[in-house]
Structure formats: C-alpha cells, structure tokens
C-alpha cells in the first residue's frame, strides 16, 4: 500500500468546488485547507494508481497544481 500526501493548489474562491470535486475519489482524505491550497492524502496499491489519481486531480477545472510532498509505503 502506497500513501502519498499532496498539496492541491486552486484558483481563489474555488475551495468548496474543489472539495466537492475531490469527494468522489476513493481512498482520498482531505486534511485541511489554507491559502488556496488543500492537503490531501491518497492511498493505493500501486505507484501507477497514485500517478493516475494525481493526473485525474490535476485535470479538474480550477486546479492550478498538484504537488506530491511525501510518499510512504505501508
């Protein structure tokens, strides 16, 4: 099991929309928000699934960047 934390940066005043858009992602937990950035943690069995999830998050409208910070293995 891989665990990764990400900083998701989004356009100003779009926090609620982004959180709603992230809601359907399985194995994704939102930890907090500050200055147009959300801290999320995603879990997956394989690295490629993590990468895929990051790509999908990056494609959400109003998201400016997705920065992986920390990846760990269970």
């Amino acid at each position, binding site marked *: 099991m891989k*665990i990764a934390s990400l*900083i998701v940066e989004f356009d100003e005043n779009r926090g609620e929309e982004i959180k709603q858009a992230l809601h359907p992602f399985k194995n994704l937990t939102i*930890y907090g928000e*500050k200055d147009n950035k959300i801290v999320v943690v995603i*879990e997956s069995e394989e690295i490629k699934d993590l990468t895929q999830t990051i790509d999908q998050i990056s494609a959400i409208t109003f998201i400016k960047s997705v920065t992986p910070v*920390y990846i760990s293995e269970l």
Partner: protein
Amino acid sequence: MKLTRRELLKYSAAMAAASAIGLDLPVPKDLVAKETAEKWVKGVCRYCGAGCGVYVGVSKGKVVAVKGDKDNWNKGFLCVKGYYLPQILYAEDRAKYPMLRKGDKFVRISWNEAMDIMVSKFSQSIKNHGVDSVAFYGSGQAYIEESYFMNKLFKGGLGTNNIDGNPRLCMASAAVGYVTSYGKDEPMGCYDDIYHADCFFIIGSNMAEAHPVIFNILNERKKKNPGVKVIVADPRKTLTARIADLHMSFVPGTDLAILNAMAHVIVKENLYDRNFINDHVVFKTIKDDKPAKVTFEDYVKFIEEYTPEMAEQVSSCPKDMIIQAARLFAKSKATMSLWCMGLNQRTRGVWVNNLVHNLHLLTGQICRPGATPFSLTGQPNACGGIRDAGLLSHLLPYGRLVVNEKDREEMEKFWGVPKGRINPKPGPTAVDIFRKFNAGEIKCLWVACTNPGQSLPNLEVYRKAMAKDDTFLVVSEAYHPTRTSELADLVLPSALWVEKDGTYGQSERRYQYLEKAVNPPAEARPDFEVFVEFAKKLFKALGREEEAKKLFNYKNTEDIWKEIMEASRNTAYDFTGMTRERLKKEHGIQWPCPDINHPGTQRRYTVKYGDPLVKKFDPNAKDISFYGNKADGNKAVIWLRPYKGPAEPADKDYPFILTTGRQLEHWHTGTMTLKVAELKRAAFKAQLEISPRDAAKLGIKNKDLVKVTSRRGSIILEAKVVDVPRDGVVYTNFHYPDKLINMLTNDAYDALSKQPEYKISAVKIEKA
C-alpha cells in the same frame, strides 16, 4: 484503540504537506496523551535542541504517555517524535547489564567487576603514560550535572584537557562565531523573537523537519501576518523552503560570497545603521595571523569586490535575489536569522557565522524584539551541558578558557585544586581524540551518551581505531549494540531520559529540570552515579583518596547543582538565582538570572529589554552593551572574512556534492527513534535524493540502486528522484545504522572551531 500503522502513515504524510504550506493539523486522538496516567512528571523532550517542555505520564511504574507542557514556550505542542517518546524506554535492545568483550563476544559482568576493570585500565595508563593517555568523549544529550562533573574530574582533578563532546561536531562553529563576534557564546535572542520578527532569514537549516515546533511558530507568525517575509537560503527545496517568499538556491559552500554581497548591497544602498555602528561596533581583520582592528572605510573597501554579480558567478544564486534579500533584511522592522548545521558543519563555519552576525550589526537588527541572529541547536543539552558548562577541550565552565591564566586560577581556586593543575594547552578536539586513539597516544577512552561509531566523519578510519585490541574503549549507553558499543571493550548500561534526574539547557538559554519518573531497567544506572563512583575509585588507585573526598563529595545531582550555580557567579552566564526548587516549579528559566527573585532574561546585552548584567559589567551603558567583549570596549565585531570555498569542491572525478541531514521522523543516529515502531514504519531506510535532471543524465530511475563513492568510501543506496536538491547536489539522511553515510563524509575541519565539514563531500554516482 491504537492508531493503526496506516493512520499514522497518513498523518505523517499529511503533516509533511501541511508543514509545507503552514497549516496546523489537529493531533490524532491516539497521539494525544491519555489522562489515565497515575501521575504526570514535568520534563523536557529527549530529542533536539528546541527543548520542548513535556509532561510524562506514569502508570504502574512505567512511562505510558507524553504530552506537551502548555505553560512552557512550546505552548503544549510537540512534533510527532515527541508523542512517541515512551517507546524509547522499552526497546528490546536496552542495555541492562555491564558487558565485557571476550574475543568476538560480550559477556555479562557485575558492576563491581566493571568498575574494577575500568579503574585498573585508566590508573595503569595514567601511571605508565601520564594523564594525557586517557580521554573522555561526552555528549550534548547528557545532563549538565554529568558533563560538569566529568569536566571537573578531567581538567581539575587529573589535569588533562583530553575531554571533548559531540557538540564539537554540530555547534562548535556557532559557539566560536558568537564568541568572536560578541565576546561570549550563546544567542542574545529567544524564541519569543519569532512573534515579533517581520523578516526571517533562514540559512543552512531545514527547520520544518529538524525543529518542527519552532518552525510551526514561525509559520503561524507568517500566516497571521501576510507582510512577514521569509527568505530561505538552501541548496535544496526543503519543506522549509516551500514557505519562502524568496528561496535562494546556491552551490554548497559558496554562501560566504552571498553574505558578503548582501553586505555590499546594504552599504551601497545606504541601508546600514551608522549610529548603531558608531556606538556598538568595531571592525577587524586578520593581519600576520593575528586579529587587527580596521576602520569602517576599510570594510567598505573589502566588500567592494563582492558585487551581486560576482556572488552570482561564484554561487549560481541570481544577483537579483541577493539584492532583494539584502533589502528585505535591512528594511524590515525586525529581522531574525536562524541557522543550523548548514553553516556550522563547514571548514569555514566560523567565518560564515561571523558573516551572518555582520549583517545584523551593519543594520542594527539586533538586541530588540524580533531582531536577532539565532543559532538553532541540534541536541537537547549541547548549550547547557557542553558550551556553557565547558565540556570542550579548550573551555572551562561559564565562558572561561584554559588558555587564560586568570580563568584557570579562578577555577582552580573554586574547585580547591593546586595552582597550575589545569593544563593551559587546549586538548584534542572530537576528531583529534579519535586520531590520537588510532595512533595509540590515547590508550583509554570513555565514550558516554553518544554514538561516534556512526556519527564521526570519514568513519572507517575511526571505527578501526575504536576496534583496536591495544587500546581500551568504554561505552556508556542506554542501548546495546549500537554502532559504537559493538566496538567497545566494556559497555556500561545507562539510565535514559526520565529514568534519572538532571538539567537541560536549550537554544534560548533556558534551563529546565527533568524529574526522575521511573526506574531504569535491570542494572542500568544514571551516568552521574557511575561517574562519581569511578572518580573516587580512580583517585584511590592513584593514591589520592583524600583529595577525592573533597573534590567529589556529591550524594546526588542537587549537591552538584548548587556548585554549578556558584561556578556561574560573576560571569556573563550568572544563574545563581536558578535554584532546584525554582526549576522544579517553573517552566524553564533563561539566564542570566543572578538572584532568586529574578525572572530570567529573554534578551541579552540590552538594558531596555531587561538584561540585569549590562550595568554590572558596563556601568556607563545607556542601553545596548556587548559586555562579553570588554577588550573592544564592550562593542561587537564586524569581521572582514573573505570568500573561501569548501575543502572538497566537486570536480571531474567526483562531480556531485553530497550533503546530509535529518528527516522529520528521526533523530541523529536513530538509536531512539528507530525503536519507535510507528516512526520506523513511516521512514525506514536511507535514500539518495537526486534531481530529475541529474538522474536522467545518468540513466537513473526512481528506486534504482546507486553506488555513491567519495574519496573515502562507497555505499549503495536507493535513488529517490525528486525535485528537491539542486542539480549537482545529492542528499541523504544519516539516521540509519545499516547505511553508514559518514563512511563518505569529509573529516577536514574548521581551523577555528575544529568542526568537520559534513555538509560538503565530493562524490560520484553510478548505477549499482
């Protein structure tokens, strides 16, 4: 219910990301100490030099929980390491009995046998080869009482300066930096300055991981005050750098040019404080190998060549950034600099420390709330136990020096030993103690509370020295085996942390008492008890039993604490008001604290902000007085320090610079944090960070095994391809005993501080 491994890892991951954006995460319920403890004992965290106040929860004779002390400077906050402290006491590999080497094995012996063997070896060595044939290597993790005692035994009792401590490897350059710039060691500022600063200049410190609680306060300051600027100068995009308004990346070892260039801009743009300079500063350079006073005009001439363009050429840090940093530094209402090993572990460590102080002195950004140069400390008692109590081979307690006749006479009188007992020649420093051990000049070495078999640079040479058959190595340790105790001839089991009582002194001159909370396991004993017993028996073996009765007449740590307080009287450290009773009740006290009613001193060298010693040492001072530097009229020194590169720059054979450091979950050589299951699961192996561009050039993919080779050795590590180190720089942690990173690092050291250049080693990288 226990926090699951999965939840802990998720929390650790989230905390890392949250730190990067300055977000405070609530602590998971399972990490919050349980209120079911039978009693709560006041103490201090065992790890870094931040010195977070804790309460230790005890139930049925065991430590069951730890919580932050809300009334201490850390306001109840701890980092993830702190919450898991109880586990370090109950690791399976705790050293429980004295163990003697017999061939390749260790056999259990009694304390009496251990003491007899030690006393016999040390006394025979002294009788046959003189006092300089024995040595002690101490620690910034030992209590003040322990370090002060060993210093007295060696320097005052035996008359040898063969005693040094591991802060030589982490803090010596900062200490000599303060001494050369202000006359006396230790910061004049405090953590409270973080609440007042408008500009932070963080250089050579990844405080988000190495000092997370201090970093969180800084983050909070920035979060609540958007005008606050953070400048981070670091060759890596660390978690600390991610909150920076200005991240100055540079080629490791070139920061002297950058700092002189910042001074150049400050002078050129007339951003300096002429009045402050006139009143409180002298200028010095080195002429004919001696310090010589020069003028402000000489200084201006000296920094003329350090244009931002020149600094850019040397360092690759863009000149516009250097100019911007200089302006932010000088124009801010209050600028606080924070630094750590990135400046200290260098062959020009003292010089680069001086250059940071220069910026504060040029601009008058000093001695008022928020304006201060503040050196962060690596170990919980490097300041109190080693720098202040004088357990370095050139020091005597509380700012006194072995080379100074008056200081020697003062301590000889204070200790009641004959005039001339203290050797006027500084002893060997950390690396040199092990060099002499290797050469057989030192025949008996006692290592206590530290792990040089993993932490010394150019490690293989010194591991061989420790493993030699013709010398005698004693290791006092809480765990066995460690990478040092495995090489010992005799291992003595030590009580750990709150299994004994004593005092710690952290980075902001705050002394805090740790009460004993539980008993140590099996036959482990407090080092203080062992030291005193050894001293008495050694002196008996040397035919000096009567002298020992006077010198080492302590029943407990409180007896020696009274003597330690007295040793500080009439010095710039004066803490004669810090009685045990007060330390037990209060949440740390900052020196100077010259009488029992004094509350302690947040900011030194200023009458306005409450330093009680200014008027004592400089009666005519109106406000600021750098009274530690009487020789220069109580003024501080701006030094003319030229740019010099590292001892081992990258070249065609070794084209990368290896730099090392800490990560959030672990501390030092991992003897404690790697015993905490949750921390170990979160981070369990050393990896080599390499930039994506460098990795692509070498055909290295993430998780490939790579061979890292310096002029001193090779090691295989897993590659972590990540956009953190700048191109040409690779990085790894030094925590892991299965990967002895210090086999690769350089033991060349600073000529003034004798601190080795861990931070810069030239290496080559190949796919393994």
